[in-house]
């Protein structure tokens, strides 16, 4: 009922929605994380995402499975992209469906918060001035992460 995967290809959010849609589900919530053109005031022109692939997939699967226990009846499709992404491209997509809206919304939120907290994925931001840096979310205000 739920899937989690890494991909090196552009994410097709419509196909994620199709994966979780079903006639007994009245609510579908899709979350897309996209590459922003700036971070903490610095102009960004792209991000390299890398992962500890095997563990990232395992951890993503654990998260969707936990969400399935917390929000009984939810179906989830989770996909995270790795590689070099340009501004505006989707890095992560989460589609959740449920008979009722509250669970679909809350399951989606659970998945994105847990993903950001514990899935071993890293990003190196490339700035317009030609420099680049590994992003460390612990070194900046929580509000700064998309």
């Amino acid at each position, binding site marked *: 009922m739920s899937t989690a995967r890494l991909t090196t290809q552009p994410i097709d959010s419509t196909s994620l929605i199709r994966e979780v849609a079903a006639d007994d589900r009245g609510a579908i919530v899709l979350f897309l994380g996209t590459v922003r053109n700036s971070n903490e005031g610095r102009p960004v022109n792209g991000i390299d995402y890398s992962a500890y692939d095997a563990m990232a997939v395992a951890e993503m699967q654990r998260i969707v499975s936990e969400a399935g226990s917390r929000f009984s009846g939810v179906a989830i499709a989770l996909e995270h992209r790795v590689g070099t992404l340009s501004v505006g491209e989707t890095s992560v997509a989460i589609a959740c469906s449920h008979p009722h809206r509250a669970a679909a919304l809350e399951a989606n939120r659970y998945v*994105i918060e847990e993903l950001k907290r514990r899935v071993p994925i*890293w990003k*190196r931001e490339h700035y317009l001035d030609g420099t680049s840096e590994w992003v460390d979310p612990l070194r900046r205000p929580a509000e700064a992460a998309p």
Partner: protein
Amino acid sequence: MTVRVLLFASYADAVGQNELTLELDDGSVVGDVVSRVREMAGGRALPPAPLLALNAAYSTSAAVVRAGDEVAIIPPVAGG
């Protein structure tokens, strides 16, 4: 015994490698792997108590490692 050690992102950059093998005494723990990596050139860039994984799942530094295990030292994650 031999264990495989994985480094990522800023930690891999600091040490200049993303994968290495270490010879450890029987009964060694995951924390011993961190100590050994921190003794390598560039290793002081790693914190003394980083996030750790043993065979692709989060682990404490006290977990015992066995021959053939895969230990990963995990920089602050930034997915999403």
